[in-house]
């Protein structure tokens, strides 16, 4: 072969092997020497399968034969075949990755030689794997951050014990509802205080008390509207044993009375906690927006006043706020600006 041609092949960054029709090696460039650790003089004129054991496999012998017979090229990826040439006595086959391209070389219109190019892509494959691992780590980290964010949002909005809205979120929802309500449309605030809860807590313990509060919240949620198709009712825990329910879309006070009585009866049904049967009742004050008040603070205040009236007059009942109640309670108005004690 021309010396300059040999020099050109030796300068290639790819392993180049040329075999003749009897599969004997006629060209073995410098890169092949480096990859296989077999010097050129030990490779030339020997069969490819003797020098590179991979080519004893019928599959790869078949690929070269097909190229010689049909004159068609073939590409074999490192992904599906791993490697074709390994250093002598090398044990870590899994670590090396090579692509193979086999092409025919014709003389006088007939395929006389097979031209094999073996590219080492180990570094590239390893870089890609490292990048993929890094992307997976970033995705995991992102998911963790999102979960923490969701937990923080939940904590800021929901009462940890009962899962209903906390006071801050409740006041925000109430304010939003007021801003959205069209003229003439009403909604109703029910202000509930459990009767005798302090005694339950003191006698049966805080654990039972907590379970009771969870069950009360559950019953309030199950018996108010949250079907997503209409404005949903709002249920919140706003203090120790105090709950608030906002009934959206009330057509008149009679509707509110029906729901209020339903909730009263639901709360009167026995609760079960720690193998104990506990009977509770609730004092409930009702205020109507916008009839009874025009702001969040005012509405809560007047509903609280109505509830307090019930507490004073025997508990376990419900009443609407109206001007007569305000007049009679003027000396005992309760400002709703801090969390009240249970009971």
């Amino acid at each position, binding site marked *: 072969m021309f010396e300059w041609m040999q020099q050109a092949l030796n300068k290639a960054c790819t392993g180049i092997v040329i075999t003749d029709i009897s599969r004997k090696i006629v060209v073995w460039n410098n890169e092949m020497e480096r990859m296989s650790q077999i010097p050129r003089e030990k490779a030339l004129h020997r069969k490819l399968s003797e020098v590179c054991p991979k080519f004893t496999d019928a599959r790869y012998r078949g690929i070269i034969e097909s190229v010689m017979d*049909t004159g068609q090229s073939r*590409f074999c*990826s490192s992904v599906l075949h791993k490697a074709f040439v390994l250093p002598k006595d090398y044990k870590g086959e899994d670590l090396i990755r090579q692509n193979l391209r086999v092409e025919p070389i*014709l003389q006088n219109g007939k395929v006389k030689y097979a031209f094999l190019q073996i590219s080492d892509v180990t570094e590239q494959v390893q870089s*890609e794997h490292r990048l993929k691992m890094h992307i997976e780590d970033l995705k995991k980290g992102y998911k963790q951050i999102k979960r923490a964010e969701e937990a923080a949002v939940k904590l800021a909005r929901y009462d940890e014990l009962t899962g209903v809205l906390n006071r801050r979120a409740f006041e925000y929802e109430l304010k939003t509802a007021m801003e959205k309500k069209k003229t003439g449309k009403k909604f109703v605030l029910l202000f509930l205080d459990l009767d005798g809860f302090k005694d339950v807590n003191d006698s049966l313990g805080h654990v039972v008390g907590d379970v009771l509060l969870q069950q009360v919240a559950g019953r309030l949620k199950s018996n108010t509207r949250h079907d997503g198709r209409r404005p949903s009712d709002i249920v919140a825990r706003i203090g120790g044993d105090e709950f608030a329910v906002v009934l959206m879309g009330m057509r008149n006070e009679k509707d509110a009375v029906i729901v209020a009585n339903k909730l009263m009866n639901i709360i009167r049904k026995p609760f079960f906690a720690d193998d104990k049967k506990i009977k509770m009742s609730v004092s409930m004050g009702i205020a109507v927006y916008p009839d009874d008040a025009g702001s969040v603070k005012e509405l809560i205040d007047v509903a609280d006043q109505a509830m307090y009236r019930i507490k004073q007059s025997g508990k376990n009942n419900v009443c609407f706020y109206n001007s007569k109640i305000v007049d009679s309670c003027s000396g005992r108005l309760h400002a709703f600006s801090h969390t009240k004690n249970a009971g």
Partner: protein
Amino acid sequence: MLTTIQKDALAKTLNAVMGLSANLLSEEVNRKIILSVPFVELKQGFEIHTAVLDDEDMLGAGKPVIHMVTFGDECSELALVIFRQDGAGVLANACMGNVPDAGSCFSNEDADVIREICSILLNAIAYEIGKLAGIRPQHAQYIMDLKADVLDEKKVIPPEAQVLVVHVSFFLADSMAKGIMLIVLAAPSFEMFMNNMMI
């Protein structure tokens, strides 16, 4: 224009060719692959443009992935396989036994697997079509990673050539990928192909 009988014969022939190619491909990648030909069109070379890549329903999204084999005495006959990276990625991952991750990039590994699949597929197509078209399989050359403008360059696809535009679906495990094959034959070869096909 093809007659109804010719269209039927063409569909049957191409399905048979695809079936043989699929068997070969399945053996090589050691996974069961099924190729189906839902649709074939006959066009002339000058009608082929990059617009063939625009059907997102057909090909999906991503950069084009195009490989080609030339065959025939003066390399005047061509067969091309065209994917978009979406479909190519699905096929590559299915061949590797991976479940494709929605939103994952088309990697170098994916590209290598597609290069191998296409070399096997195009060789099989060139061989089978070549037999029917009276073309010796010698001198076939596999050319990888063509740019989309190869479809617009009339030097590669001669304007007067007959082009079978074959819409192909690849089924592998639970995955499906769509691609387009262009089988480009000079007029005499096409005539022999059609005659042999009708026998």
